[in-house]
C-alpha cells in the first residue's frame, strides 16, 4: 500500500447543472496523519467528507482513497471500502436510540463488517476499548440514558472498534465546552495513535487547530 491514504488532483464536484460547489486542486493525507480541515459554514466541508467517504461521486478529477480510484469505482464497491476501512464521528454522535451501548458499539459488525480478527479477539478489543474510555459500566444501558460526554465516548468506541485506517470527524466537538472539547480530542488522538488511524477533523472552531499535524483551509482551494 502506498503511503497516501487520500490523494486528490483537480477534483470538482457539482450537483447536476448548478455551479461547482467544491474544487480541490491538490490534497493528500498521509498514513497516520491528522488534518484539521477549517472553513466557514457552507464552504463545502461536509461535501468534501462525503466525496472522500465515497457517498458522492466527483464530477471530474482524480480521487484515490485507500489505494482505490474512487472517481472510477461504483457505489457498491465504495460501500465496501467504506465499510472495511473508514469510521465516522458526528456532531450529534448518531447513536441508535433503541440499542444498548454495547449494541451501538458493535453495530458496524452487525451490519456486516468483518476483518481478520475472530469474534473472541473482537470481544477482547471491545472490552479493552470500553474500559479505556471508562464506559464499561454502561455497557448494557440504553443510549437514551447516557450523558452527552458518555455518548461521545460510545461514538468513539464505535468508530475505533473496527480499527479503521481513516477516521472522518464532522464537527464532533462543536457542542462541547472547551474543557470537554480538549478531553475528547485527547481520547481521539490516543485511539488514532493506537490503531494507526489517519484522521480528517472538520471544524469551524479554530482553537483546536494547533494540535493537528496540518491545517487545511477549505477556502484556499476555491
Amino acid at each position, binding site marked *: 500500500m502506498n503511503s497516501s491514504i487520500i490523494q486528490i488532483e483537480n477534483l470538482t464536484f457539482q450537483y447536476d447543472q448548478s455551479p461547482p460547489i467544491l474544487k480541490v486542486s491538490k490534497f493528500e493525507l498521509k498514513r497516520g496523519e491528522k488534518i484539521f480541515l477549517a472553513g466557514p459554514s457552507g464552504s463545502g466541508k461536509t461535501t468534501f467528507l462525503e466525496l472522500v467517504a465515497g457517498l458522492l461521486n466527483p464530477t471530474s478529477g482524480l480521487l484515490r482513497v485507500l489505494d482505490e480510484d474512487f472517481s472510477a469505482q461504483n457505489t457498491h464497491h465504495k460501500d465496501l471500502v467504506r465499510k472495511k476501512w473508514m469510521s465516522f464521528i458526528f456532531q450529534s454522535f448518531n447513536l441508535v436510540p*433503541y440499542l444498548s451501548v454495547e449494541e451501538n458499539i458493535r*453495530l458496524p459488525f452487525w451490519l456486516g463488517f468483518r476483518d481478520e480478527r475472530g469474534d473472541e479477539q473482537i470481544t477482547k478489543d471491545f472490552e479493552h476499548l470500553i474500559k479505556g474510555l471508562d464506559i464499561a459500566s454502561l455497557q448494557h444501558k440504553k443510549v437514551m440514558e447516557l450523558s452527552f460526554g458518555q455518548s461521545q465516548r460510545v461514538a468513539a468506541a464505535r468508530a475505533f472498534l473496527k480499527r479503521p485506517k481513516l477516521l472522518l470527524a464532522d464537527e464532533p466537538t462543536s457542542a462541547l465546552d472547551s474543557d470537554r472539547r480538549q478531553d475528547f480530542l485527547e481520547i481521539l488522538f490516543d485511539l488514532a495513535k493506537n490503531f494507526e488511524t489517519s484522521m480528517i477533523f472538520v471544524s469551524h472552531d479554530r482553537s483546536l487547530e494547533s494540535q493537528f499535524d496540518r491545517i487545511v483551509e477549505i477556502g484556499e482551494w476555491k
Partner: protein
Amino acid sequence: MKNFILISWKSLLNRSFVVGLTITCIALSTALLLTLEKIKDTAEGAFTQTVSQVDLLVGARSGQLQLLLFTVFNMGQPTNNVSWESYQYWKKNPAVDWTIPYSLGDSFRGFRTVATDENFFEHYRYKGNHSIQFKEGKPFEKMSEVVLGADAAAELGLHLGAKAIITHGVTQGVGFEHHDGHPFHVCGILKKTGTAVDRAVYFSLEDMEAMHMEHPPKGPVPIHDITSFFLRTKNRIEVLKLQRDINDYSKEPLMAVIPGMVLSELWKNLSYFEVLLKGISWIVAGFSLITLLLMMLSSLENRRREMTLFRTLGAHLSQIASFLVLEAVWVSGVGILIGWFLSRVGFLVLGPLMGDIVGVDSISWGLLPHEILLVSFILVGSILISLIPAVKVSRQVLKDGLTVKS
C-alpha cells in the same frame, strides 16, 4: 444475519404503538379471511357430502332439485310417490347392490319424520365413509319404535324409552291433528352427524302406513308407496345405464339423479354468497396491507436518519432496502400468526351458529394447503408493498450522504 434481524426487531419495538396497531390490523384481516374460508369449506363439505356412496336417488318425476331437497335435506314436500311395486322391481335389478327406501312424512314437534327400514342404518353414509352410529339404543325392529336424530333428541329432551306422539302434516310446533291412536316409544338415539340426519325422526315404513289408516290391521301392514329411495350399484360403471333405464321406466314415471352432481350444482348456485364473503375478506386484507404501507411511509423520515447512519457504518443499499422488507415480514408474520390463532377461536365461536344443514364436528389447528396459499398472499403482498418505502428510502439515503438533506 441473526443480528440484522435483531436490529430490525428492536427498531419495531421502539415504535411499538403504531407497529402494534398495524399488526392488529393484519391479524384481524387474516383471521377474517381464514375463518370465512374455513366456514365455507366446512359448509361446502357438509353440504355436498350430506349423503355419500349413493349412486342414484330415485323418486317420482319432478324436479331434480326438489327430489334432492326432500330426500337429502328433508325439506319441502314431495308431490308424488313411488309405488312399492316399482321400488321392489328396481331393488331386485341385478345391477343394484342395495337400496334404502325413504318416506318423508309428518313432523314430530317440529322435526321431520322419515320412514325407512334397516337398510338406512346399515348403508347410509355421509362425509365420505361415516356411517350412522348410535349414541344409545338400537335401530327399530318392530312397529311403534322410533329412532331420534341427535339434535331432535337433545332439543326435545327425550331419552331412551320415552313416549312420543307423532303429529300429522308438517308443522313447527304441536300438530293440529294428533295421531293419538299411534303412540311410539324411543328405541334409539343417533350420534351427531352434522347433516340433516340430526334433525329427523326415524321409524318403520309399516308405521307410516298404519298411522294413516283408520283401522290398522292386527297382522302385517301392507306398504303402498314410498317417497323415494337411495340406490347403490354393484359396479359404478352401471350407474349411467341404470339411470337411463329408470328414467325410461314405462310402468311409472320415475326420475333418477346422481346426488353428488346435483349437490355440487346446488352449492354452485348458492355460491354467490360465498363470492361476496370472499370479496369482502380480500378487500379487508387489501386494506391491512395499505395500513402496513402507511405505517412504513409515515415513519420514513425517522427511518431515513437511521438508514443514513447505517450506510455510513457500512450497510450497503441492498441491505438498507432489505431492512425495510424485513420489517414488513416481521409485522405481517406476527400479524398472520395472531390472525391464525384468532381464526381458530373465531371458528369455535361462529361454527355452532352456522345452522343445521352445516354441522361442525372438529377443528384443526394446522394450516390447510389452501390456507397456506391465503396467508402467503398476505405475506408476499406485504413484501411487495414494502418495496415502495424500501426503494424510496434507498434513493434518499443515496442522495443524503453523511447527513439527511431536506
